[in-house]
């Protein structure tokens, strides 16, 4: 680990001011990703700004229009076991419990989950070129070992994926990210928070200099998907492994037909992958395999696999169909019985 200074933020304004004046500073909260990356010297911050004592970031509460606001410091385990979330946004419960381990979920925070870095082997290995870690140095995954990498939305500069499960559900549920920065507060629609690599893969998200994530909000409308949903995660081990492909699927049924649909993929792109065409293709349809296949085709249209991850295209297609079928029948994938029905 490099030498760094430590500052315990006294207030949000203090943290923002500190971050604004020192671009080489980093915010630390749960530490589960940042400390790990510092040990590998992937991250070498000059200063750590500890925000864990800021009370205003710790709370979870209903907001006026009926949505739920989750403070950036709320641990993943508190999100996973919150009764309000389980009742109104169970897709989020399932996604959070699909990720990491109980120990990590106890430490990892909501804001940190959004801001975690990719688990691309090359990003994590400072002896190899990586445009995300060292802009301009090249991408070792293109032409390298790329079994876990992106099949959608990648660029010639980077084919890394975003590793979060929680974010896939937040994308599907149309969450928003509340941030505070030198110019005040703003709310970023979840789909605009993470970005595709393009020619700047070093930028994972659209935060501006000095901005800090303070909360994630779930809209009231997303609670209309609490009956028919699933989070289906496919991975090399049944527990504690990142997704090769994951699907967040949620439906509203009106008699025999689909009234509304939400669909997002994890493990396949630089951000949770969602396309309105795929969801619109389901509206008005009878929930059957033909409709699900059509939605899958829209969602993975334009997929560009690499040498070792072509399997992900067909895996994603089948996972989408399976997840939509689970959602339609109201039988979410079990969190403990890992057999896929």
């Amino acid at each position, binding site marked *: *680990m*490099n*030498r*760094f*200074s*430590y*500052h*315990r933020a006294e207030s949000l304004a203090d943290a923002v001011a500190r971050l604004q004046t020192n671009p080489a500073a980093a915010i*630390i909260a749960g*530490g*589960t990703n940042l*400390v*790990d990356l*510092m*040990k590998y010297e992937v991250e070498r911050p000059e200063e*750590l700004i*500890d925000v*864990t004592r800021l009370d205003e970031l710790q709370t979870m509460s209903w907001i006026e229009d009926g949505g739920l606001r989750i403070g950036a410091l709320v641990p993943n*385990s508190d999100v996973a*076991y919150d009764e309000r979330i389980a009742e109104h946004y169970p897709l989020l419960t399932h996604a959070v419990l699909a990720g*990491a*381990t*109980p*120990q*990590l979920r*106890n*430490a990892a925070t909501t804001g940190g989950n959004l801001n975690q870095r990719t688990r691309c082997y090359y990003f994590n290995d400072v002896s190899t070129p990586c445009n995300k870690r060292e802009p301009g140095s090249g991408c070792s995954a293109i032409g390298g070992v790329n079994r876990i990498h992106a099949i959608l939305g990648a660029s010639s500069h980077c084919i890394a994926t975003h590793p979060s499960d929680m974010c896939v559900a937040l994308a599907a549920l149309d969450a928003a990210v509340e941030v505070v920065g030198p110019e005040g507060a703003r709310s970023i629609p979840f789909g605009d928070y993470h970005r595709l690599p393009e020619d700047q893969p070093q930028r994972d998200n659209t935060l501006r200099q000095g901005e800090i994530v303070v909360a994630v909000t779930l809209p009231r409308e997303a609670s209309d998907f609490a009956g028919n949903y699933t989070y289906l995660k496919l991975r090399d081990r049944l*527990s*504690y492994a990142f997704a090769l492909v994951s699907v967040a699927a949620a439906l509203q049924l009106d008699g025999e037909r689909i009234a509304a649909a939400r669909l997002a993929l994890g493990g396949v792109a630089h951000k949770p992958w969602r396309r309105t065409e795929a969801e619109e293709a389901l509206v008005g349809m009878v929930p059957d395999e033909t409709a699900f296949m059509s939605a899958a085709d829209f969602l993975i249209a334009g997929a560009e696999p690499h040498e070792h991850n072509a399997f992900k295209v067909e895996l994603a297609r089948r996972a989408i169909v399976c997840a939509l079928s689970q959602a339609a029948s109201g039988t979410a994938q079990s*969190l*403990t*019985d890992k057999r896929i029905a």
Partner: protein
Amino acid sequence: MSHRPAEASAGIGITITINEQVRQIEVQPSTTLLDLLRHDLALAGTKKGCDHGQCGACTVLIDGRRINSCLQLAVMQDGKEITTIEGLAQGGQLHPLQQAFIERDAFQCGYCTPGQICSAIGLLEEGHAGTRDEIRELMSGNLCRCGAYSNIVDAIEDVMIQRAGIVREAAE
């Protein structure tokens, strides 16, 4: 509270309670809780396996919650209460989980055991496991390369059943 690298040798003063003993210590910003315990405080019961949050050998309880101590900076633990494997026995009496691990032969080399036991304490306190499958899933953060998993599940299940019995008796 700020600290510059130039002052590094001086360290930062923190107060933490470890196994019910209040300690005032100076730590470097880069010292992890795991290294503080093992190197500075000679509490070597907590083990360093991967040092990257992947194996769970370093699991301790921070304010009652199971956490990977290798990924926590010591300086951030100011004011917290830490429980390690050394703090579990009371008055010469092993913690029920320690006893159950012995009775169920739930280890071979023993290196992962302190982390397994601290993690299992967290699991029991959290109260989300009711079946063997749920114990397995919620112990997924603790690897055992000897492969004592089935006996580890037995040990945890034993204590869970004992506790349920105590709760039932208390309710009657």
